[in-house]
């Protein structure tokens, strides 16, 4: 056996020559191990993320080998740094341009809550404009913390129902952020 680690198989029924599991789990396994990141880096947390993508911490191990600075084909929006109110609409547009399924990680104090910038010009947490799945604490968080955030997100993705994105509940969540099915902001 080689020492290459593979993702463990989801729980299911194993017999001779077959393995049965639910579609949810199979799809979740695939999605969780190929989270393609879209870094939205504005400040110091972005620098920490660059270290996370470097060889020492190697985010690529998690199937995040393709960082794209475009919403195309990306699943995981990482918001890193202070988001000023003037930047808010830009971030929201990037989020809307991503295709479903999409997840958001707020990295660091500023993206999560505005951080030390408790002032009129700074958005007090990106969850005021887009839904957030994982918050990474720290100012700035170490690369280990960002990796931990990605792993927490993997747990979320693994257990997410395939039908969640079509559900009424999810539509309501997006509408509470004034994001509608046709991508319009009304």
């Amino acid at each position: 056996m080689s020492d290459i680690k593979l993702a463990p198989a989801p729980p299911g029924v194993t017999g001779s020559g077959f393995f049965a599991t639910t579609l949810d789990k199979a799809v979740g396994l695939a999605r969780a191990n190929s989270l393609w990141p879209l870094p939205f880096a504005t400040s110091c947390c972005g620098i920490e993320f660059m270290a996370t993508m470097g060889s020492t911490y190697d985010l690529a191990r998690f199937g995040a080998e393709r960082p794209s600075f475009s919403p195309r084909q990306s699943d995981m929006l990482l918001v890193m740094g202070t988001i000023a109110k003037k930047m808010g609409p830009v971030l929201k547009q990037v989020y809307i341009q991503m295709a479903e399924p999409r997840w958001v990680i707020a990295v660091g104090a500023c993206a999560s809550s505005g951080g030390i910038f408790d002032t009129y010009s700074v958005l007090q947490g990106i969850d005021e404009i887009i839904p957030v799945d994982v918050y990474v604490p720290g100012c700035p968080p170490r690369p280990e913390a960002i990796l931990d955030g990605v792993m927490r997100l993997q747990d979320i993705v693994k257990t997410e129902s395939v039908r969640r994105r079509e559900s009424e509940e999810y539509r309501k969540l997006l509408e509470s952020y004034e994001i509608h099915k046709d991508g319009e902001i009304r």
Partner: protein
Amino acid sequence: MAKLDNQVLLERLEQRFAEHVQKTDEPFGLLSVETSKEYIIEVLKYLKTDKELQFIYLTDITAVHYPSQELSIAVVYHVHSLIHNVRIRIKVFLNGDKPEIPTATTVWNGANWMERETYDFFGVIFVGHPDLRRILNVDDMEVFPMRKEYPLEDPNKVDKKEFFFGR
């Protein structure tokens, strides 16, 4: 050429503008004078175009809010003479309710963005400015945030109370 000293500079200004230009202070050798909004553009033009003084570089235009004063907004001009390596600061005090002052874009094109910034943060209206709109803050903002009229923190916020941080 001998270095232009502040005494000579002040004499030249007083010779030209008499009592409309008054010295206020000289911290760290930076001559500071005060004038009125009627004379500010003339003063700037004189400093820039005078053959000897040659204050050709407009360093900054900004403002200060003094809430306790009757004329509560001071517009501050920093002008630099690259030839003499001397700087002068000119202040004009304005009524805080309706701060209006003629634009310096007629003298320096570079004043355009500086005046937009000063309008953005202090609400000073530069009369005759070609495009006076906000430059740094969001366009739909209704306040002028650098005026000392607002509490530093929103008193209604609950998300950053001390007990959340174990204090």
